[in-house]
C-alpha cells in the first residue's frame, strides 16, 4: 500500500486498471509504480511526473499532452539493457510492464539539468525559423562539426549498439474487408460485413479495442458503453471469418489495397520477447495485407488551442484529461481551467469535478453555448466564462495560472480585461481533426469541411472512411455510419448484407451546440511579441515562426512547412498541422482551403526496423548460390569472392614453411603460384557459375544472328564461336561463347552476373519484336557444372579419363565434342579464357563432384592446381580478353575494344546495335579505346580506376583522357600490366601516358597492345 500511495494522482476507484497488482518501473533513473492496464504515460501522470522531455529546439520543459498516437512530447527511449534499446516510443502508447525502464530522449546531459535551456531562454530571439539554414551556412566545411553538436542536443533518441536479441516476422494476409480501427464505427462495420459472410480483418492500434467507447460518458441500450463493447467483441471473436488484431497499427496504405500493419506482439510484456512454451516468439510482426475493400475507422484527433506558453507541463488536450480520468483512474492535476470552442470538451470538466477535484472555470469562446453538456456543467455549479479564452499559461515547470479574457474571434483581438485564474492544469479543445493519414497515403487529397471545421478524406474506389474519420462525431450516427460502411463493403464484395436497424444499440439523444472555428488565440501583444504560442510542439514551431515565414514570402503551406519544420519528425503534424495552416491563412488573409493542405506519407507512427526487416537478416538476408564443388573448395581452404549471389573460389592459399613453423600464402603468392601452374603445367577452374542458356528451334540460328554482332549462319554442329552482344545503342552489354549442338540447337554462355538479364534480353526481343521466329530459351546454368582444365599438360591429364579423341586435328580449338569423362556423359569444349590449351568439361551437376575428384586423382601426377577467379583475371588480362562490366561500362562499342573482327556489318538483317555504330558519335575520332598499359617501372601495379593524362605538367584541372580498367602483377611477365581505355588509344601505340596518384606520385606507362602473353595466340591451338 505504501507503494501505491506514491501514485498521488491515482483515484481510489474507476478506470480499467487492476489495482490489485502493482508494477514497478524506472523513468530517468527513478523508480515508480503503476498497475496493469496503465500506459507509461498514465503511470507517469499518476505519479505526478510533470516533466517528461525537453523540447527539440528551445529545450523547454515539456509534459504529457495527449493520451494516444498524437502525443508530441512524451517520446521516450525504452530498454533496460543496451541490446534492447528502442528509440522513439510514445509513452502514451506503451503499455506498462513490470521492470520497464525508460528515459527522456531529449536533454543533454539530462532532462532536468539541460544545457540548451539557456539557449531556449536567452537565445530564442536568435533562433528564428530557418535558424540552421541562416546560422550554420558558412563556412560549409564546418557543417560536420556543427552537426555533431546539433545532433547531440536534438531529441532523436538513439539506436542500440548491440545486436537485437529478438526476432521479427512478416506475414502475408488476404481478406475481403480490412477494417482499421475498432472504435464504434469500426466495430459495427466489421460485425455487419462479417455477418454477411465476408472475411474480415479488424486491426486496432491500442492495447484494448473500443476506441472512444473506452472512456465515453454515453450509454448504449441504457448500459455503460463498455457493456456493448464487451458483447460486440465477444460476438466478433466467435465468428470464424473474423480475425482480430489488437496492438496493431495500420501504418501505411499502399497501392491497390495493400496495407501494412505493425503488430506489437510482446512489447506490452517486457523488454525482450518472452519465450512461449519453450519457443522464441516474435517481438513484432509486419502484416502485408491485400484487401478486397477497406474501411478506415481511424477516428479523430483533438486539436489543442494555440495560446501563449501552451507548452508548459500541465497543458493538456481536453479529451486526454477525460481519457486519463475515465480509463486509467488518473487525474493529472488539482485545479483545472478548460478553454474550448465546442460542447464536447465539457466532458473534461465534468469528469474532473466528478473525480473530486476542483474546476476553476470553463472558458468558452462562444458567446452563448447551449448544448446539454453546457447545461450539465452549469447545473454542477461549474463557472462558465463565455466569449473568452485562455490567452496565456503562467508557470515554467508546471502551469500555475491561466490568463483569461474576452476575445473577438473574427477580429483576432482581445476585447476584455484579463483575469488570472490560479490552476495547475489547462485543458484545451479547438475541435477535432479526422485522422485522414491512411486515406491520404493513397494520394487522395483531403477536402476542407466548414461543417466539421476540419479536413475530411476523399478516398479511392474500394476505400470507405467511416465515423470520426470522416467527421461524423455523435455516437448514434457513428454506429449507423459503421453499419452502412460495412454493408456497402459487403455488397461491393458480392455478399448480401441484410441491414437491420434494430441491431443498432440505443443511444440517448443529446443536444450539442455548434462549435466555433478557433485555432490561435489572440494575445494583448502581437503574435511576434507575445510569449511563444506553440503550433507544433514536437518541432518547436510557434505561431510567430509561421508569421515570420509568411512575412519572408513563403505562401504555399508546403514551403512554410519546410521552412519552419512544422509537421516533421515522428509526430507528422498530427496535432499541429491544421492550426499551422490556420495561422498561415490568417497571416495571408485567406481561408484554410485556400492555403492548402499537406498530405501525409507513410508511416502513420514509427515502425521498428526489426519489423520491416522481419526474417530477412543475417544468413537469410540474401540467398547464396554454391556450385556442386563448394564443399571441396571449402575443404581446400579457398578464399571466396561474391559474384552476384554466387560464392566463387577467389584463390587457394597453401601452407608455406616459415620461420618457427608454417604460414598461409598471401593472395599475391597464391596467385603467382596458380598462374605459373596454368602457364607451365595444368590448372583447373570451377566455372560452373557461367550463365548457360539452351536455345532451340528452327529459327535459333537466325535469332543468334540478330542478337549478336557477329555471324552465325555457317557455324556447324560441333563448332563453338565467341559472340559479342550489344544494346540497340551499339554499346557492348555481354559476351560469351555459343556452341552449335545441332542444326537447331545451341548453347549460349553468358558472364556469371548477366545470366538472368541476358535471358530476359533474349525473351524481350523474341516476344516483342520477332514473335514470328520459332525459337525457345531455357536457363540451364544450374543443370550443368563446368570445369576448365587448362595448361600445356591439359591433354595428357585428360587422355586416360575420356573416350573423346583429344588429338589436335580431331578435336580442334573452338570445337566441342560429346562423350564421357570419368565415366559420366559430358560435353567438352575446346575454348580458352587463359590463352593456354584448354578443355571446358560440362557434366550434369549431380555428377560434378565425382568428375572433379577423378580429375584430381589423375591430376596428382601433373600437380593439377586449382585456381580461383583472381588468377583467372590475371591470365585473361595477359591475353587481352575483356570482362564486360569491368573493361566496359556501357559506353564502349565493339570497335572501341578493337574487336572489329566480331562485327558483321554485311549481315542481311539489321542486328541489334548495328544502326547505332554508324551514328556520328560512335564514328567520331578520339573515342576512348581499349589498350594495354605497361608501367615504366615494372614493380608498379597501377590502380584500377586511376585517371590517365597525356601531359603530367599540365595546370590543374588536367584534361583526363581515360582510366585503368584492369590491372595486375603478371608472374609470367614479372611486371605489372594493365588494360585501360584511352582517347584515340589505338593510334597511340608506343606513346607514354601518365597517371597522377592521390599521394602525389605520377606513374608513367607505355601504350601497348592488349595481348601481353603469346600475342599470336599459338598456345591455345597446340
Amino acid at each position, binding site marked *: 500500500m505504501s507503494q501505491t500511495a506514491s501514485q498521488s494522482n491515482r483515484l481510489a476507484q474507476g478506470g480499467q486498471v487492476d489495482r490489485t497488482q502493482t508494477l514497478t518501473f524506472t523513468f530517468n533513473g527513478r523508480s515508480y509504480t503503476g498497475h496493469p492496464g496503465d500506459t507509461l504515460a498514465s503511470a507517469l501522470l499518476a505519479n505526478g511526473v510533470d516533466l517528461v522531455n525537453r523540447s527539440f529546439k528551445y529545450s523547454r520543459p515539456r509534459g504529457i499532452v495527449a493520451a494516444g498516437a498524437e502525443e508530441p512530447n512524451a517520446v521516450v527511449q525504452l530498454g533496460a539493457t543496451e541490446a534492447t534499446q528502442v528509440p522513439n516510443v510514445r509513452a502514451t502508447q506503451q503499455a506498462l510492464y513490470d521492470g520497464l525502464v525508460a528515459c527522456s530522449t531529449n536533454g543533454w546531459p539530462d532532462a532536468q539539468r539541460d544545457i540548451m535551456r539557456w539557449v531556449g531562454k536567452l537565445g530564442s530571439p536568435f533562433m528564428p525559423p530557418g535558424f540552421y539554414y541562416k546560422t550554420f551556412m558558412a563556412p560549409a566545411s564546418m557543417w560536420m562539426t556543427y552537426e555533431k553538436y546539433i545532433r547531440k542536443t536534438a531529441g532523436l533518441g538513439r539506436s542500440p549498439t548491440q545486436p537485437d536479441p529478438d526476432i521479427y516476422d512478416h506475414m502475408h494476409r488476404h481478406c475481403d474487408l480490412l477494417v482499421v480501427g475498432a472504435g464504434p464505427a469500426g466495430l459495427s462495420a466489421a460485425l455487419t460485413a462479417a455477418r454477411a459472410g465476408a472475411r474480415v480483418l479488424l486491426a486496432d492500434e491500442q492495447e484494448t479495442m473500443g476506441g472512444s467507447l473506452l472512456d465515453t460518458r454515453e450509454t448504449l441500450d441504457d448500459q455503460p458503453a463498455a457493456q456493448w463493447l464487451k458483447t460486440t467483441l465477444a460476438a466478433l471473436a466467435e465468428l470464424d471469418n473474423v480475425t482480430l488484431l489488437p496492438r496493431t497499427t495500420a501504418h501505411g496504405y499502399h497501392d*491497390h489495397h495493400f496495407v501494412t500493419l505493425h503488430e506489437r506482439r510482446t512489447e506490452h510484456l517486457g523488454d525482450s520477447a518472452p519465450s512461449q512454451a519453450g519457443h522464441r516468439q516474435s517481438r513484432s510482426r509486419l502484416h502485408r495485407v*491485400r484487401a478486397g475493400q477497406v474501411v478506415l475507422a481511424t477516428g479523430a484527433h483533438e486539436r489543442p488551442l494555440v495560446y501563449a506558453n501552451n507548452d508548459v507541463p500541465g497543458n493538456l488536450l481536453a479529451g486526454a484529461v477525460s481519457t486519463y480520468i475515465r480509463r486509467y483512474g488518473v487525474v493529472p492535476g488539482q485545479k483545472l481551467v478548460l478553454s474550448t470552442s465546442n460542447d464536447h470538451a465539457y466532458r473534461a470538466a465534468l469528469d474532473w469535478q466528478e473525480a473530486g477535484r476542483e474546476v476553476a472555470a470553463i472558458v468558452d469562446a462562444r458567446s452563448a453555448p447551449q448544448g446539454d453538456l453546457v447545461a450539465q456543467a452549469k447545473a454542477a455549479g461549474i463557472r462558465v466564462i463565455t466569449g473568452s479564452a485562455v490567452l496565456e499559461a503562467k508557470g515554467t515547470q508546471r502551469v500555475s495560472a491561466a490568463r483569461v479574457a474576452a476575445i473577438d474571434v473574427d477580429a483576432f483581438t482581445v476585447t476584455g480585461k484579463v483575469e488570472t485564474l490560479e490552476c495547475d492544469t489547462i485543458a484545451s479543445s479547438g475541435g477535432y481533426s479526422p485522422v485522414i493519414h491512411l486515406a491520404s497515403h493513397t494520394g487522395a487529397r483531403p477536402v476542407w469541411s466548414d461543417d466539421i471545421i476540419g479536413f475530411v478524406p476523399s478516398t479511392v474506389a474500394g476505400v470507405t472512411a467511416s465515423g470520426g474519420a470522416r467527421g461524423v462525431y455523435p455516437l448514434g450516427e457513428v454506429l449507423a455510419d459503421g453499419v452502412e460502411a460495412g454493408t456497402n463493403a459487403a455488397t461491393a464484395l458480392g455478399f448480401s448484407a441484410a441491414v437491420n436497424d434494430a441491431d443498432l444499440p440505443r443511444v440517448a439523444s443529446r443536444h450539442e451546440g455548434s462549435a466555433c472555428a478557433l485555432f490561435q488565440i489572440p494575445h494583448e501583444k502581437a503574435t511576434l511579441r507575445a510569449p511563444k504560442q506553440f503550433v507544433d510542439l514536437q518541432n518547436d514551431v510557434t505561431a510567430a515562426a509561421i508569421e515570420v515565414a509568411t512575412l519572408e514570402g513563403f505562401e504555399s503551406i508546403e514551403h512554410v512547412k519546410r521552412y519552419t519544420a512544422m509537421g516533421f519528425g515522428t509526430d507528422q503534424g498530427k496535432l499541429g498541422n491544421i492550426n499551422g495552416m490556420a495561422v498561415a491563412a490568417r497571416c495571408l488573409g485567406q481561408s484554410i482551403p485556400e492555403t492548402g493542405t499537406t498530405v501525409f506519407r507513410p508511416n502513420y507512427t514509427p515502425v521498428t526496423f526489426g519489423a520491416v526487416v522481419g526474417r530477412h537478416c543475417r544468413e537469410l538476408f540474401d540467398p547464396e548460390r554454391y556450385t556442386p564443388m563448394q564443399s571441396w573448395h571449402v575443404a581446400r581452404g579457398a578464399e571466396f569472392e561474391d559474384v552476384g549471389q554466387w560464392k566463387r573460389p577467389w584463390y587457394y592459399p597453401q601452407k608455406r614453411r616459415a620461420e618457427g613453423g608454417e604460414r598461409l600464402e598471401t593472395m599475391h603468392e597464391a596467385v603467382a603460384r596458380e598462374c605459373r601452374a596454368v602457364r607451365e603445367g595444368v590448372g583447373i577452374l570451377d566455372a560452373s557459375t557461367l550463365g548457360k542458356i539452351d536455345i532451340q528451334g528452327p529459327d535459333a540460328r537466325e535469332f543468334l544472328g540478330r542478337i549478336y554482332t557477329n555471324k552465325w549462319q555457317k557455324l556447324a554442329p560441333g563448332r563453338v564461336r565467341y559472340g559479342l552482344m550489344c544494346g540497340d545503342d551499339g554499346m557492348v552489354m555481354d559476351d560469351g561463347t555459343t556452341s552449335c549442338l545441332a542444326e537447331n540447337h545451341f548453347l549460349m554462355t553468358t558472364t556469371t552476373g548477366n545470366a538472368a538479364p541476358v535471358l530476359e534480353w533474349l525473351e524481350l526481343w523474341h*516476344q516483342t519484336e520477332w*514473335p514470328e521466329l520459332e525459337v525457345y530459351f531455357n536457363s540451364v546454368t544450374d543443370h550443368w557444372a563446368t570445369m576448365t582444365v587448362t595448361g600445356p599438360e591439359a591433354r595428357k591429364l585428360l587422355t586416360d579419363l575420356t573416350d573423346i579423341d583429344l588429338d589436335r586435328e580431331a578435336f580442334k580449338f573452338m570445337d566441342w565434342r560429346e562423350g564421357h569423362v570419368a565415366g559420366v556423359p559430358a560435353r567438352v569444349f575446346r575454348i580458352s579464357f587463359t590463352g593456354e590449351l584448354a578443355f571446358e568439361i560440362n557434366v550434369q551437376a549431380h555428377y560434378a563432384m565425382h568428375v572433379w575428384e577423378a580429375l584430381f586423382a589423375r591430376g596428382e601426377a601433373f600437380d593439377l592446381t586449382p585456381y580461383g577467379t583472381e588468377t583467372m583475371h590475371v591470365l585473361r588480362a595477359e591475353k587481352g580478353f575483356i570482362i564486360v562490366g569491368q573493361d566496359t561500362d556501357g559506353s564502349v562499342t565493339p570497335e572501341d575494344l578493337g574487336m572489329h573482327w566480331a562485327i558483321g556489318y554485311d549481315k542481311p538483317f539489321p542486328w541489334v546495335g548495328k*544502326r547505332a555504330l554508324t*551514328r556520328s558519335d560512335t564514328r567520331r575520332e578520339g573515342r576512348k579505346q581499349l589498350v594495354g598499359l605497361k608501367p615504366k617501372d615494372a614493380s608498379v601495379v597501377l590502380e584500377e580506376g586511376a585517371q590517365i593524362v597525356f601531359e603530367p605538367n599540365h595546370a590543374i584541372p588536367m584534361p583526363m583522357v581515360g582510366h585503368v580498367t584492369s590491372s595486375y602483377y603478371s608472374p609470367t611477365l614479372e611486371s605489372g600490366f594493365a588494360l585501360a581505355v584511352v582517347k584515340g588509344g589505338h593510334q597511340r601505340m608506343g606513346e607514354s601516358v601518365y597517371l597522377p596518384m592521390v599521394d602525389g606520385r605520377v606513374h608513367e606507362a607505355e601504350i601497348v597492345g592488349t595481348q601481353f602473353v603469346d600475342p599470336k595466340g599459338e598456345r591455345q591451338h597446340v
Partner: protein
Amino acid sequence: MFHIYCPYCEELREEEEFHPKGEAHIARPEEPEACSDEEWGDYLFFRDNPRGIHHEMWLHAVGCRKFFNITRNTVSYEILETYKMGEQPTVGAEHLAREEKTASVQAAEGGQQTVGASDAALASVKGAQA
C-alpha cells in the same frame, strides 16, 4: 505495391513477381538504316512521361516469363487493363498524348536531338504494333 493481373496466367499476382519495362508500343523501326540519327535517337532514348493514361510494358519475370502491356493511370496508379503483347489497348489517351507531344516539340540546346518526337518521327518509329 501493385496487384497485377497477368493476361497469360489469368490471375492477380503481387508486383514482386514483375519487372517494369518502360513505355509500351515502342516498335523498332523496320529499316534502321533508313532512320536519320535523330529518329534513331528518338527511338532509343525518348519516352513519354504522361500525367494520366500510360501504356507500359511489364514482364512476369518470376512467373510465366511473358511480356505484356498495362494501361495505368500515373496519377492514381489504377491499372485500367492488362493485355497481351501484340494486342491494342481498349482504354487510351492516344490523341491526348499526341497533342501534348506535338506541343512540346522543341530543339534541345546545342544538341542534335529533339525533346519529344515529331509527328513524322512518331509515324516512322511507332509503325504498326507487331
